[in-house]
């Protein structure tokens, strides 16, 4: 009997589902960062607003990378429904704490995908997500470094203005 399933798709159903779930996580991240950008803009933190707008674009890029991969392998990528996007934040610091938590959540999700890929021996997808896992090192590093600035510079007086000014300068160098 002809294997119609494999003729249609090279993706295992479980892997397709978990990748589509990740598309949703990335889209949600993008929406959260956009909300953070708007909040920072509203509060007068211009550099942070720019930083989060850039992050929102990046997350959308990640989403599309996953989205296209699913379709390229014969699966069906699902355009996700995004709900529960927080639009208000307690403080300048809490915005960055939420951002770090979000990145840690994304890393955990990719670890789960890697584990699943190993379980079903889908080494092609495993290879594909290596890029994302490497990317998460940078994402978490930058978010953590920014949070540290709140302690190093301090929030008193012009502290928050100073922190905001330094946000675009935080970069990751793996070398």
């Amino acid at each position, binding site marked *: *009997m*002809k*294997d*119609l*399933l*494999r*003729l*249609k798709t090279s993706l295992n*159903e479980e892997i397709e589902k978990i990748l589509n779930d990740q598309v949703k996580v990335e889209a949600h991240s993008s929406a959260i960062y956009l909300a953070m950008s708007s909040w920072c803009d509203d509060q007068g933190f211009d550099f942070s607003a720019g930083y989060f707008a850039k992050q929102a674009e990046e997350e959308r890029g990640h989403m599309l990378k996953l989205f296209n991969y699913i379709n390229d392998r014969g699966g*069906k990528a699902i355009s996700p429904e995004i709900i529960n996007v927080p639009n208000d934040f307690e403080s300048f610091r809490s915005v960055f704490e939420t951002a770090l938590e979000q990145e840690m959540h994304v890393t955990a999700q990719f670890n789960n995908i890697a584990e699943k890929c190993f379980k079903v021996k889908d080494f092609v997808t495993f290879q594909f997500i290596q890029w994302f896992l490497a990317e998460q090192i940078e994402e978490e590093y930058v978010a953590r470094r920014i949070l540290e600035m709140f302690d190093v510079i301090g929030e008193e007086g012009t502290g928050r203005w100073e922190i905001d000014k330094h946000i675009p300068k935080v970069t990751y160098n793996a070398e």
Partner: protein
Amino acid sequence: MLCGFASLEEVFRTEFGAVLQCSNKNCYWLEFAGDCTPFKVTDFLHLRRKIEEINLSELLFDPSPRADFTIIMPFRSQRCFVLSVSDVLNLKELMQGAKFMMELPGIIKDCLKAAPTSPLIIG
């Protein structure tokens, strides 16, 4: 979609229906409740997921009349499924069995490929 009956191969059958495969047209046929309907592979997989997603306990514990039947209208098909709770149960069983049988050829192929190609020399 027209397929000669000779080209249909049985994927899985229960007392209440069957899933058949046409290897000429690369499609699946669902035989259920006295009717036989063709589906392209993607559409069949979508229908299967829809059936899997039906929450049986929700239907059973919902006292409203609308919970007595579930309506599924697959895209690109003239068939509309109006399913009672027992129909849902039967269709779920059929789809689960079909899912396993559809994946089986791939699993067997993988096992055969993984097996050593040259004969083992003992002694």
